C-alpha cells in the first residue's frame, strides 16, 4: 500500500490587524469581517477616498481589482450596489478587501484614479456595466460595450440575451465611413 504524504498546509496570509487598528483610530469603527482568511472592511461612500489615501500611505501599493456586485436579487441585501476594491501590498504581502455600498438613484463614488492609475480602466468598466459614476475620473466612458449602447448590462434587471440591441445597430454605408 503506497503511503500518501500529509496534505500541504494551506497558505496562512499575513495578518492585517495593524492596518485595521490604524484605520479604526483614524476613521472610527468600521464594519470588519473575516471569511476564509480574507479580511473585508465596509467603508461608507463619503469617506472612501480618505480611507484609500490612508491605505496607500500605509503601503498598499497594488490595486488588484475594482468591481461591483448588484444585490438586487440577493436575500437580505440592504443596499443595491456593492463596490469591491481589492488591495495588496507588495512590501508586506498583505491583502485587504474594501467594500463600499451605494444605492439607486444616482450611485456615485469618488474615483481613486489619483491614487492608483490602474483604476482608470477598471472604473470605466464598472461605469459601463453597472452605471456607477466615479467623480473625478479623467475619462469616464464605456470600455467593453460600444459607445452608442445605452443600458448597463451587468445589472440584474438587464436580461441575459439583451433587449435586441444587436439587431438594431445603425447600418453604416460606404459613404458614411
Amino acid at each position, binding site marked *: 500500500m503506497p503511503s500518501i*504524504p500529509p496534505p500541504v498546509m494551506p497558505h496562512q496570509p499575513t495578518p492585517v490587524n495593524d492596518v485595521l487598528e490604524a484605520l479604526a483610530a483614524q476613521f472610527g469603527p468600521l464594519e470588519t469581517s473575516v*471569511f476564509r482568511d480574507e479580511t473585508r472592511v465596509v467603508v461608507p461612500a463619503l469617506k472612501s477616498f480618505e480611507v484609500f489615501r490612508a491605505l496607500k500611505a500605509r503601503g498598499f501599493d497594488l490595486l488588484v481589482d475594482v468591481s461591483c*456586485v448588484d444585490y438586487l436579487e440577493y436575500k437580505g441585501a440592504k443596499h443595491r450596489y456593492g463596490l469591491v476594491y481589492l488591495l495588496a501590498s507588495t512590501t508586506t504581502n498583505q491583502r485587504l478587501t474594501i467594500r463600499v455600498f451605494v444605492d439607486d438613484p444616482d450611485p456615485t463614488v469618488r474615483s481613486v484614479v489619483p491614487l492608483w492609475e*490602474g483604476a482608470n480602466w477598471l472604473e470605466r468598466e464598472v461605469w459601463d456595466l453597472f452605471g456607477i459614476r466615479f467623480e473625478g475620473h479623467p475619462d469616464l466612458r*464605456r470600455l467593453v460595450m460600444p459607445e452608442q449602447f445605452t443600458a448597463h448590462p451587468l445589472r440584474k434587471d438587464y436580461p441575459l440575451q439583451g433587449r435586441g440591441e444587436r439587431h438594431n445597430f445603425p447600418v453604416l454605408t460606404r459613404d458614411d465611413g
Partner: protein
Amino acid sequence: MAIATNEFDSATGGPDGARSEDYLWTLNFGPQHPATHTTLRLVLKLEGERVVDAMPEMGYLHSGFEKIGEHLTFNQYVTVTDRMNYISPMANNVAWHHAVEKLLGIDLTPRCKYIRTIIAELARISDHLLCNGAVGLDTGAFTFFLYAFYQREVIYDIFETLCGARFTNSYTRVGGVSQDFTPLVIEKIRTFVKTFPKTLDDMERLLTRNRIFVDRTKGVGVLTKEEALNRSATGPVARASGVTRDLRRDEPYLAYEDFQFQICCASAGDCYARYLVRMQEMRESLKIVAQALENLPAGAVNVGIDQRTALPTKKQVYSTIEGTISHFELSMSNRGFEVPNEETYGAIEAPNGELGFYIVGDGNETAYRARCRPPSVLHFALFPHLIRGHTLSDVVAVLGSLNIIAAELDR
C-alpha cells in the same frame, strides 16, 4: 488595414496641443491587422514615424462571460473560463476552481494538487512559448516562432491524451479533476521534460544575442517599477520591471511549497527584459513539472464522497449507498452541494499575471456574481504610456511583449 489621414498645417507647429495636432497623422491600427493579437484597436497619432499618442480601444470580442457566470453552475462555467485566455486554458480552469473551492471550503487531495500544478505549469510553458514566439514573429523571426509552435503541439498532444481536448479542456471540476493521469500521459510528459530544454536552447541561440532582435527590443517600452505598481501590472510584465511579486511564492496555493524553483525578475522593464523573463520562467516551470512528476502522490484524485462535491466513481455508485446518494444529489438540479451566502476572491499566478475570480455565492449551485480579474485589461491600459516617443515599428514589439489576449481582455 491601416487607414491614414493627414491634415497638413503649414509651418505653425507650435509646442501646445490644439495647433500642433494639425500636422499629426492619425493611423488606425484597427481591429483587423496581422500584428494585433486578435481584435483590439489602437488609434495612433504619428509625427512622421514617432508615436505621439495612442488611444487603445477594446470590446470587439465582448461576450458577456461575467453575465453567463450568473446562469451556469460551477462545473458548467469552467467551459467558459477555457475561452478566456485560450492560450493557456488549463490555467484558467485551475484559477476558477481554486476560487470556487475557496468559497466552498474544500481541501483537495494531494494527488489532485500535484496534478493541477503540473498542468498549470505546462499551460505556463505553452503561453510563454506563444508570447515569445509572437514577439519573434512580429519582429521578423519566423523560425523562432515555428520552433515555439512545434513544442506547443507537443503540449497539446499531452492535453489531448489526458482529457480528450487540445485546448478548451475544461479539465478541473469542483473537488478534483475530470480524468486522472494515466501511465501514457506520464510517459508523454516525461518525454517532453527530456526534449524541451534542447529546443529552448536552440530558440535562445536564435534570438537572445541576435543583434537585430536586441536592437529592436532593448530600451523599447520601458516600464519603471513605480509605474508598474501604480498601474497594477502583475506577472512577467511587472517582474521584468523589478516588482518581485509571484503568487506561487508569496501566497502558495496547490503544491508549490513542495518544489524548488526560482522567481524570475529583471530590472530593465523593456521588451527585451520581458522576453528574457519569460524564457527563464519556462525553464523554471519545466523544473517544477519534473519534480512534481517524479513525486506524484498515489491515492484518490477527487475528494471523498462524504463531501458531496465531486462525482463518485461508477464502482462506488453501484456498490455503496453513499456513492448512490452522492451521485443522485450531484446530478439532480438544485440538490447540489452547499454554497455559503458569502463572497470571496481567489487568485493564481497565471502565465499572464494575477488571474483571480471574485465569486459571490447565494446558496444556489450557480454563482450570484462571477467576476474575472483579467491581467490583460491592465496591461493594455499600460500601452499608451509605454509607446509614447517610440516609432511605429516598436508598436508591434511592445504590443507583443505585453501578451494581450483579446478574449481575456473583453470577456
